[in-house]
């Protein structure tokens, strides 16, 4: 559904929407959840930030520490259980909620928690899913006059199957020069603790991703996950490439009056 409407007239009545900032963004990249807030308000969504939130538990779950993930999973369920929709600027965190929270609860033998997270999971949305599927918009009234290339992060691509929703949103941005990224669907090599435990292979993969990014001549690499962007971005900066990274939310939040 494409709606080239003036953002202020896109109503979302009756839905209690919460922002899950994610621990990574909360601690390291606050600009991203800030952009989500700005963007959603522009679209008429009064998003709340329940301060009890912590983390989806993915760093523990994916490293084999299911037991250690349980406290985070519990906090997540308690924090967000009462909301109609939870939006998070992270494909991997939403993927972990929808595909791993029930397993973690089962692993620690908490049937009640398993029921809670199973009921909650379908209400948790990655940003592009929320915009396109829940709000029904692809033109969010953004303005960003730069050459940009998009990297589809693996969890959003293969776990969430967001397909081309992020691209639909980006294409509608005024002034943008969006160029295709070669071999876009190849993993960037971040992979959570993989980036440290298998640093050499991670860097080999990221190096190829960075090479493809540079080949586009783009000024900005955009993606829906800051974790991947930190990895590829770290290689791009180390290589003094002159390419910067931004989160999808920041580009979509950018306007002429309030540019990113």
């Amino acid at each position, binding site marked *: 559904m494409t709606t080239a409407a003036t953002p202020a007239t896109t109503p979302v009545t009756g839905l209690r929407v919460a922002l899950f*900032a994610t*621990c990574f*963004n*909360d*601690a*390291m*990249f*606050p*600009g*991203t*959840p*800030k952009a989500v*807030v*700005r963007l959603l308000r522009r679209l008429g969504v009064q998003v709340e*930030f329940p*301060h009890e939130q*912590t*983390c989806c*538990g993915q*760093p*523990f779950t*994916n*490293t*084999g*520490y*299911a037991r*250690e993930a349980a*406290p985070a999973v519990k*906090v997540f369920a308690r924090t967000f259980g009462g909301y109609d929709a939870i939006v998070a600027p992270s494909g991997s965190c939403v993927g972990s909620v929808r*595909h*791993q929270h029930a397993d973690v609860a089962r692993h620690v033998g908490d049937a009640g928690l398993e029921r809670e997270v199973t009921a909650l999971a379908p209400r948790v949305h990655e940003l592009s899913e929320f915009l396109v599927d829940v709000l029904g918009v692809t033109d969010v009234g953004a303005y960003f006059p730069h050459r940009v290339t998009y990297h589809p992060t*693996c*969890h959003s691509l*293969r776990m969430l199957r967001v397909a081309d929703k992020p691209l639909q949103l980006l294409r509608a941005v005024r002034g943008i020069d969006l160029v295709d990224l070669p071999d876009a*669907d*190849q*993993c960037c*090599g*971040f*992979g959570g*603790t*993989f*980036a*440290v435990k*298998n*640093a*050499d*292979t991670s*860097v*080999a*993969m*990221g190096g190829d991703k960075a090479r493809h990014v540079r080949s586009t001549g783009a000024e900005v690499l955009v993606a829906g996950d*800051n974790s991947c962007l*930190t*990895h590829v971005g*770290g*290689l791009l*900066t*180390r290589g003094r490439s002159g390419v910067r990274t*931004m989160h999808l939310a920041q580009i979509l939040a950018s306007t002429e009056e309030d540019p990113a």
Partner: protein
Amino acid sequence: MRTPSGSPTAARHVGVTADFLGMPSFPDAAREALGDTVQRRNLAHATGVIRGKRAKVVGELENWEELRLAAEAIKNRTLFQLDEHLVAFEAAATAAGVTVHWARDAEEANRIVVGLVRETGAEEVVKIKSMATQEIELNEALEAAGIDAWETDLAELIVQLGDDWPSHILVPAIHRNRSEVREIFLRRMGDVGRPAPEGLTDEPRQLAEAARLHLREKFLRAKVAVSGANFAVAETGSLVVVESEGNGRMCLTLPETLISVVGIEKIVPTWSDLEVMLQVLPRSSTGERENPYTSVWTGTTEGDGPQDLHVVLLDNGRTSVLADEVGRAALRCIRCSACLNVCPVYERAGGHAYGSVYPGPIGAVLTPQLRGTTSEVDKSLPFASSLCGACYDVCPVRIDIPSMLVHLRTRVVDEKRGGVPSAEQAAMKTASWVMGSHKRLANAERGAGVVGRALRRRGTTTLGSIPLPGLGAWTGARDAPVPPEESFRQWWERTDGGRSDDVDGTVDGTEGKR
């Protein structure tokens, strides 16, 4: 580990056997392999080509997803009643004139095969490519019993003559380039049979012809052949071999005795199940609609082909994999290698880094289940992945490899519990405690904010090195971000969700950046 020409390899024991030698952990082996420019080049090219071919022949079919679901269902049906199907297979095969043997592990399987060969009086066997025989290290067992085992698949021949071990399930010599193959043929063919022709060039057609001539005398001489099987049909007692070169055909028809070593998970219940399996296998493996030679045989036929047929049903850990509700999905594998060809980790690290005859994504989940998680390499295999999920997307029997990797990582971690906590365990415990309460997380963020402020005051906006244990692995090649002066939750609290301040805030210094 690729060996320099001529020197014996200690990297011989990579099967699933009792005397498995510990290989280096995956990260260590991968680091070395990443520097192998020949292999990097070969793999990037070969896997890229096969990916394209697979995508094309899969894209032709409107019902590809249906086929995958059917293949998954057939294999699941088999596994849920594996005992019944195996017994049915034995009955049907026996009625057709086959002698069926049951081998609980590699040692027993080798003993059976060596015994059968000895009974014939033969001192050599010809082999069709068989992962199962590599898994049990049959060639080594035959060698120890004074019996030569000649690989006849071209790539396996290259690996055998090169005193090497396979690095890919389908194309085992992918780590070699053509000049290396030429050198191996010239140096070694004469030791074991017809020498390579003088003046042999590295042109692929010439190399293939040299292999044909070298192998022909073995095909014509051999009294005994050893094969595996892609499928074993319980209903009829038939075996199926799917191949590209025709060496299988030679081995299946010329000798008097044929011994087939078949993993118990290769059973399919009925003949009509092959309709699905034979559509998904060639498209997934070589990226062809149909492979050149598909051979099916059901027992003996009077006056035609081997009259002395044996099947050795191999367990070697499969039953304990079957007992694991999550891990058992790995037994659906039909050894197509589609997962290897799309794996970005495999593409760069190559097969040897996995320290097993089964490399790549399927190897990372099958090897630790078959071999256990005691050795360093086996503990490291579930972590040899970025969990990108490309493998799951292409698996014709829909094995959810990423979830299985996480499942096995949990097993490795849980097995390490108890005893003195490692640095990682301690860090995870602390972080878990922090993430269990927003107050603790907020406190931790305040600490990071202090560091961030101090660094930014110095003008540092990215970090070139982090002098903390473990994190040097990050900054060895990548810059790292500096923590912001203010976390998101601090900003939200301070500005009442941005309502009482300009929404960007200026204190955190992240204006325009992430």
